[in-house]
């Protein structure tokens, strides 16, 4: 009996293995480029984006009875990227996803899940004319656009005016421009006891956390240099060292917390400052009397010359889509000047569109709080669009955490070792 079971199991295993070897089949990325018909789209699950999505779909459907959009929120999961990755593998991704992370694009592209938008006749022109020079950051290594640059949340330093006033600091012109000023302000806040920490970016190990501590300041310090350029890490430099040492000082003096905080540290008054984008304006609302300034640099930089991290989310057109021509038209409709304007009104997030503040001057006049974010949106850096993107950021985070947050490794060693490792990853090993 045991022998029979073993034989049966071995046969089943062999069959399954052979099945596994022969997996695949179906259409290719190029199928359906001219096809039209109904499509499905996914968008984010926050209230403001849902409101925009619903009106956009309604407006399109009213004009296109033969090409209807069926829309839904991205299914729940540990992260949008995991859900999208699984949908690509299963072959049931929707036509468009209005929440595609640029960091995940190289992986989705490798999976064969994304359509090269440059292959549409007007694809290249539409993207570059809408977004201008900033679109180049979203171009893949093979020269194509596998994502439509859609919207950004340029991160800046938010500060609590009441806490600053309480600590004897000028809440309207806080000294936060240079590293020395920032550190002195942080020490003053801490000594005044107005909050547990001066600033409290998440100190946890997830690969994306460095986008909200090191990377914005590195972008500002270098005037817009990406973490990886021309296949090599760029941060093992004087600028990288200055940024890392700045954060190291904050952690060493316990001006920033080493423990994760459950909730929003800034909204809860646990920290006096935060690094966030304009999405936070509607969240903090009237609850916090806040101000915002550009991220600091070592010697100070004029606000209109300061760079930061974009925190962008883009739109992907997925190969599982049967009616790609309709999807492309919907994508252009959803990123038209009119729809971008409605997006701005509904969410306060910045369309990745050139001449943003001029195009929507009425909006920015009526909403001055958003003006500086609109201006900042033209000077943002994205995560590098290179293979092994997530692995690169995880390697960076691990090294940063060990050295900068916990001080177990000298900063110089972290910079050189991690740069070498990231160079290997960027080269594809």
């Amino acid at each position, binding site marked *: 009996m045991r022998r029979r079971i073993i034989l049966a*199991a071995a046969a089943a295993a062999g069959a399954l293995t052979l099945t596994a070897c022969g997996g*695949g089949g179906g259409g290719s990325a190029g199928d359906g480029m001219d096809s039209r018909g109904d499509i499905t789209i996914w968008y984010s699950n926050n209230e403001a984006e849902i409101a925009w999505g619903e009106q956009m779909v309604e407006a399109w459907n009213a004009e296109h009875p033969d090409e209807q959009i069926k829309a839904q929120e991205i299914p729940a999961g540990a992260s949008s990227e995991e859900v999208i990755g699984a949908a690509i593998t299963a*072959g049931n*991704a929707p036509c468009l996803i209005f929440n595609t992370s640029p960091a995940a694009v190289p992986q989705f592209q490798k999976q064969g*899940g994304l359509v090269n938008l440059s292959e549409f006749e007007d694809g290249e022109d539409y993207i570059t004319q809408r977004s201008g020079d900033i679109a180049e950051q979203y171009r893949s290594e093979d020269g194509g656009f596998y994502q439509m640059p859609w919207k950004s949340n340029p991160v800046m330093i938010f500060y609590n005016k009441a806490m600053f006033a309480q600590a004897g600091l000028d809440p309207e012109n806080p000294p936060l421009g240079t590293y020395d000023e920032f550190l002195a302000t942080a020490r003053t806040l801490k000594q005044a006891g107005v909050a547990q920490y001066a600033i409290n970016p998440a100190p946890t*190990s*997830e690969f994306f956390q460095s986008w909200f501590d090191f990377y914005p300041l590195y972008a500002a310090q270098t005037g817009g240099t990406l973490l990886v350029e021309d296949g090599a890490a760029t941060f093992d430099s004087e600028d990288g060292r200055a940024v890392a040492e700045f954060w190291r000082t904050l952690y060493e003096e316990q001006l920033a917390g*080493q423990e994760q905080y459950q909730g929003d540290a800034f909204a809860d008054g646990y920290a006096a400052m935060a690094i966030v984008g304009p999405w936070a304006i509607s969240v903090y609302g009237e609850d916090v009397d806040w101000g915002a300034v550009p991220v600091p640099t070592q010697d100070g930089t004029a606000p209109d010359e300061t760079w930061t991290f974009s925190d962008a989310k883009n739109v992907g057109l997925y*190969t599982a889509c049967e009616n790609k021509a309709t999807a492309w038209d919907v994508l252009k409709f959803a990123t038209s000047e009119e729809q971008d304007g409605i997006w701005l009104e509904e969410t306060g997030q910045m369309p990745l569109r050139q001449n943003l503040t001029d195009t929507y001057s009425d909006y920015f006049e009526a909403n001055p709080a958003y003006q500086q974010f609109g201006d900042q949106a033209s000077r943002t850096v994205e995560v590098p669009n290179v293979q092994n993107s997530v692995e690169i950021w*995880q390697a960076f985070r691990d090294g940063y955490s060990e050295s900068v947050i916990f001080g177990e490794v000298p900063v110089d060693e972290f910079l050189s070792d991690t740069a070498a490792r990231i160079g290997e990853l960027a080269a594809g090993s």
Partner: protein
Amino acid sequence: MTTDVAASAGRTGGDPGRPAGPAAGGDAATSRRRRRILGAQPLGILFSAPYLAFVVVVFAWPIVFAVWMSFQDYFFAAPGAEVDRPFVGFDNYVTVLTDPDVWQAFGNVGIFLLINVPLTVILSIVLATALDRIVHARTFFRVSYYLPYVTASVAVVSVWLFLFARNGLVNNVLGPLAPDPSWLVNSSLAMPTIALFVTWKGLGFYILLYLAALQNVPKELYESVAVDGGGRVRQFFSVTVPGVRPATLLVVLLSTITGANLFTEPYLLTGGGGPNGASTSPVLLIYQRGIEQGNPDVAAAIGVILIVFVLILAAIQRKLVGGDES
């Protein structure tokens, strides 16, 4: 026993009214062939088929597929995408075994098991014995211990974060004795804290196992020890502990297997295996490598090594704890 009966039936069975001859010999041969294929109890196959199918689909298939993946340059791809997934031999295993993060993760889970398994066995057997003897509020206590087990980790993690934070309740009680850095951001204490959390959370289930086992320990044995002058402690070590040995083996094996599959707690409690990977478990690493970073081939190799690791541990434990059971 069943085999003997079946074999005997095979030798003497058949239609008693039918004369013996070449035809009868043919029937007997067919019958033997059928029995060889289907076994003595064909109905048994029918009854066990649903579970067998479940095991094949949910366990065997993924394991076989994972082993296959671990020998390929594999990544998940869209159906129909033209991708190259060449056979790479042991390359993925070399990658895994030369990765210090993997060694650290296995070391971490080793620390976890060293704390969690003995603590689980000791606490659950002692508490089960106590719960078996108490008369008042028995249900209340049993439910109290079982409640953490049925509560989702996600729900109770926040409470532990609050308890073990720098300014949390535990450090406030400890005062100057509080560790610095605090528990969950301390490289030496993060994993032991997680082990404590998991022990506390799973205790209710193991207590139930012991409570069931205790019902099979003859009460006369306790009386005999009492007659010989043995107190409660002697009764516990001379009667209870050997009496529940099969349950102990089960508890050790189950807590080892579930412990080796640790994921949720380091993912939530220490923010993804921090600090500096001090609480990263092999399964968390599999998640990072396979799902987040798109390297399921390397993740599969870690998974296969983890299976071998757990099997070796289980075999050792069975030898050490199982007694006659092994």
